[in-house]
């Protein structure tokens, strides 16, 4: 095969790898979405036998800060069923083969929509051996002896995994902070609104009291004479 053809094929491969969805030993997906009033949203995640799946969700905004959550296995069994909780973490230790269904339920709320953050982490049991990344075939071969490389590679893989975990923790903390921030801004608005209302009610009551009293004595005078 000529070098230009090889280069072209290489280009195609890179493009394909770029377009392909991530399938490493550890899949991490997180989404934040708006759950409409009185609605239900379901997401599906495919799993193979023997994986571990971790699902974490948190309600970030919306009055009451709660949703119903259900996790349904491919065989139709309700693995988790929660009603009106604000956050939760669930682990499925041995997944079945098929599509797991995650449903967020806001049907009990008639007035407010909820913003929900959730993340799904899948640990594939098949690829726990050091995590061969998909770019391994595109790298140039090392010039130093293999046995020395192996240790360094192990350490770096471990650092990579820890940093991934750091990012996931950061994402969770960010979700907490976002929730508190929405709550606080909501509180601020509520304080302002009710203060104004309070002021108007007070003035209204004072004026009404005074004039009612005056009217009372006007009437009495007329009645007496």
């Amino acid at each position: 095969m000529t070098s230009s053809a090889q280069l072209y094929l290489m280009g195609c491969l890179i493009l394909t790898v770029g377009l392909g969805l991530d399938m490493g030993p550890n899949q991490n997906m997180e989404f934040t979405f708006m759950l409409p009033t009185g609605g239900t949203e379901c997401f599906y995640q495919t799993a193979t036998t023997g994986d571990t799946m971790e699902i974490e969700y948190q309600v970030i905004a919306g009055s009451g800060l709660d949703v119903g959550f259900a996790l349904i296995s491919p065989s139709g069994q309700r693995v988790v069923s929660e009603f009106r909780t604000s956050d939760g973490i669930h682990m499925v230790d041995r997944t079945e083969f098929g599509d797991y269904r995650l449903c967020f339920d806001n049907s009990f709320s008639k007035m407010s929509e909820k913003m929900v953050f959730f993340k799904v982490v899948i640990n594939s049991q098949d690829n726990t051996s050091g995590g061969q990344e998909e770019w391994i075939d595109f790298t140039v071969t090392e010039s130093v002896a293999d046995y020395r490389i192996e240790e360094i590679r192990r350490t770096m893989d471990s650092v990579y995994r820890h940093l991934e975990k750091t990012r996931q923790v950061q994402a969770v903390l960010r979700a907490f902070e976002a929730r508190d921030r929405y709550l606080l801004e909501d509180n601020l608005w509520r304080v302002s609104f009710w203060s104004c209302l309070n002021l108007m009610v007070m003035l209204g009551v004072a004026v009404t009291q005074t004039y009612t009293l005056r009217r009372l004595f006007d009437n009495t005078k007329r009645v007496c004479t």
Partner: protein
Amino acid sequence: SAAAGIFLLNIFYSSVSSLYFHIGETEKKCFIEEIPDETMIIGNYRTQLYDKQKEEYMPATQGLGMFVEVKDPDDKVILSRQYGSEGRFTFTSHTPGEHQICLHSNSSKFSLFAGGMLRVHLDIQVGEHANNYAEIAAKDKLTELQLRVRQLVEQVDQIQKEQNYQRYREERFRQTSESTNQRVLWWSIVQTLILVAIGIWQMRHLKSFFEAKKLV
């Protein structure tokens, strides 16, 4: 050859699932990504339509596409494009905050959906995950360890950016909190003064009223 084998393997990888959901004909699904500035986001999606004859979901026809709209934290549209039944959109954030990614199908042919739903597989990669390491390795001719180090550097970079963003968020949070506190305190004082003033006004007004009516 090995290249062909890898090509086939990658095809297999790309048909592996990520999270999917169902979307109706005119439905619009939005996702929110809170990201620091100068962060790249790549979204990959794949659509499937329910085939009644085969009774399963098959890749969607060419005529069916998705309209992707991305709004930045100031509600300004930074990406508004139509893609095919399978596509990939990229954008880089220039302001930190909540970006909104909305998808809806552009189909005007009702018969295509036929009362069913469109299945959309979606994967959103943020920051360092959006890098194409295969490309970087081939371009800079890196060994595996060098590439790994590059990846770790990017990861730490991303974590640092995220922390800076959090610090900025926390400052705003503190300002809002102090503002709320001030308002509550200020309102309590004003309320007391108003009540006292109203009381005085009422008494004086009624007193003069009764004196005028010769009841006192």
